[in-house]
C-alpha cells in the first residue's frame, strides 16, 4: 500500500504529469457541466463531430508549424455555430451533416499529416491522446479558458437551465435562447479542443457524455445531476490517470474505461432503486 502511494506521488511529481493533471481536471469539470446540457438538448453528437474537426485543425496547424490551440479553437468554434444552426433547423439533416463533417475532417487531417510529417506517432497521439504533448504555454491557455468556461456556466446557470428545459417558454418570456445556445456551443467547442490532445480526438466526446448520463441514472434534480456529474468526472479522471501511469496504459482510454465502469455502477444503482432509471 505504501509502495503504491509512493509510486503515485513519484509519478505526480513529474513536470509533464502535473501539467496533464491540471489541464485534465479543469477540462473534466468543464466537459461534465456542459455535457448535462448537450445530452439533454440531444446535442451529444455535436461534441463528437467537433472533436473530429479539432483533429483536422490540429493537423493543419502542425503542418503549418502554428500553435495548435490558437488555430483549432477558432475553427472549432465556427463549426460549432454551424452545427447548432443545422440541428435547430432540422434534426435529420443535422445528424447527417455531423457525420459528413466528422469523416471529412478526419480524412483531411490524416492526409495533411501524412504529407507533412509522414504517418508517424503524431497521428496516433492526436487520435488516442497523449499526456506529454502539452507545453507550458498550452497549460496557461487551457487554465485561463477553463476558468472562463466554469465562470460563465456558474453565472448563467439559471438561464442555461431555463433554455435547456423549455426553449420556447424561455423565448416567450424574453430570454435570448439563441444567445445561450450559442454560448453553450462555444464553451463546448473550447472544452473539446482543450481536452482532445490529452484524451484523443476519438475519445474526448465521452468525457462530455458519460458523467452526465451516469448522474442521470440516480439524480432527479437538475442541480444534483450537474454536481454529481462534475464530481464523477473529476474522480474518474484522477482514477484513470493513476491507473494509466501505473499500468502504462493510454491515459484517454483509461479515463474512458473508468467512466464506463462508473456508468455501469450508476446504472445498476438506478435499476435497483427503481427511481429515475430507464
Amino acid at each position, binding site marked *: 500500500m505504501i509502495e503504491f502511494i509512493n509510486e503515485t506521488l513519484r509519478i505526480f511529481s513529474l513536470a509533464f504529469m502535473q501539467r496533464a493533471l491540471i489541464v485534465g481536471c479543469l477540462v473534466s469539470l468543464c466537459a461534465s457541466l456542459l455535457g448535462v446540457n448537450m445530452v*439533454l438538448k440531444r446535442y451529444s453528437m455535436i461534441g463528437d463531430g467537433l472533436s473530429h474537426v479539432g483533429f483536422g485543425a490540429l493537423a493543419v496547424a502542425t503542418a503549418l508549424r502554428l500553435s495548435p490551440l490558437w488555430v483549432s479553437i477558432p475553427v472549432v468554434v465556427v463549426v460549432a455555430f454551424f452545427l447548432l444552426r443545422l440541428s435547430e433547423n432540422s434534426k435529420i439533416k443535422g445528424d447527417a451533416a455531423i457525420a459528413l463533417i466528422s469523416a471529412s475532417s478526419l480524412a483531411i487531417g490524416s492526409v495533411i499529416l501524412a504529407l507533412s510529417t509522414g504517418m508517424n506517432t503524431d497521428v496516433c497521439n492526436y487520435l488516442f491522446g497523449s499526456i506529454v504533448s502539452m507545453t507550458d504555454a498550452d497549460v496557461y491557455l487551457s487554465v485561463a479558458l477553463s476558468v472562463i468556461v466554469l465562470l460563465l456556466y456558474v*453565472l448563467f*446557470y439559471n438561464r442555461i437551465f431555463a433554455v435547456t428545459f423549455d426553449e420556447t417558454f424561455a423565448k*416567450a*418570456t424574453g430570454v435570448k435562447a439563441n444567445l445561450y445556445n450559442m454560448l453553450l456551443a462555444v464553451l463546448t467547442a473550447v472544452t473539446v479542443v482543450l481536452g482532445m490532445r490529452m484524451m484523443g480526438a476519438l475519445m474526448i466526446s465521452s468525457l462530455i457524455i458519460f458523467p452526465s448520463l451516469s448522474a442521470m441514472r440516480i439524480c*432527479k434534480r437538475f442541480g444534483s445531476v450537474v454536481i454529481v456529474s462534475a464530481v464523477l468526472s473529476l474522480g474518474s479522471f484522477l482514477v484513470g490517470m493513476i491507473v494509466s501511469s501505473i499500468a502504462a496504459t493510454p491515459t484517454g482510454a483509461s479515463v474512458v474505461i473508468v467512466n464506463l465502469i462508473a456508468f455501469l455502477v450508476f446504472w445498476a444503482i438506478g435499476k435497483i432503486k427503481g427511481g429515475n432509471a430507464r
Partner: protein
Amino acid sequence: MSLIKVTDLSLAYDTGRAVTELNFEVNDGDYLCIVGENGSGKSTLIKGLLGLKKPQGGTIEFSDGLKQTEIGYLPQHSSIQKDFPASVWEVVISGTQNADIGYRPWYTQSQKATAQSWMEVLGIEDMAKKGYGELSGGQQQRVLLARALCATKRLLLLDEPVAGLDPLVTQDMYAILRTLNHEKGLSIVMISHDIQSAVQEASHILHLHNTMLFFGSTAHYVSCSVGRRYLGGEQQ
C-alpha cells in the same frame, strides 16, 4: 382596459400557408377560447402573440402596462421531455426569470416567494423536491401552470391545457383556471379542442379557420350560425 389589440393580423405557417385578417382584442379579466380544427392557425396565432413569429401584416398591440414578455405561457404538454431531470421547484422558479428586469445570476428572495406562493395556490407545494418526470400528467400540468403564473401578473396563454388528461383531472384544470380568472383577476387566452367546455368556461370565443370566422362573446357565439354548426357537429 384592453390588454391585447390585434388589428388586420396575418401570420405565415411553417408550411407556407397563412392565417389572415385577424381582428380581436383581449380585455382585462376576459377568458378567451380560441377554437377551430387542426391546421386552422391556432398554434401559429399563439406563436405570433408570444412574439416567436413575426407578423406578415397587421399589428399586435400590448397596452395597459402589459409587455409581450410578461405573458404566462403554458405550452402543449407533449413539448416537454418526460425524462428531463428537474425538480418541481427548479421548473416553477425558472418562470420568474422574466419578472426581474435584466439579468441576475441567482434567484432573489422575491422570486422565491413568488414561486412558493403560486405552488401553494395550485396545491403542489409538497412536491417541490420531487422530480418532474415522476409526476402524473395532471400534476406535471399544474407544475407548468405554476411556472407560467410566475412569469405573469396579468395574462395566461394556454395551448391545449387539457389535452391528454383524464376527465376528472380535466375538470380540476378547468376549476383552477376558473378560480384564477374570477378570484385572481387573471385574463386567460386558451386554445382548445374541447368546444363544449370552451363555451361553458369562456367569456369570449375566437373561431379560426385560416381566417377569423367568429369573434365575440360566448353567448353570441352559441346563437350565431358558425357556433351552432360547430357545436352541433361536435355533438353528433
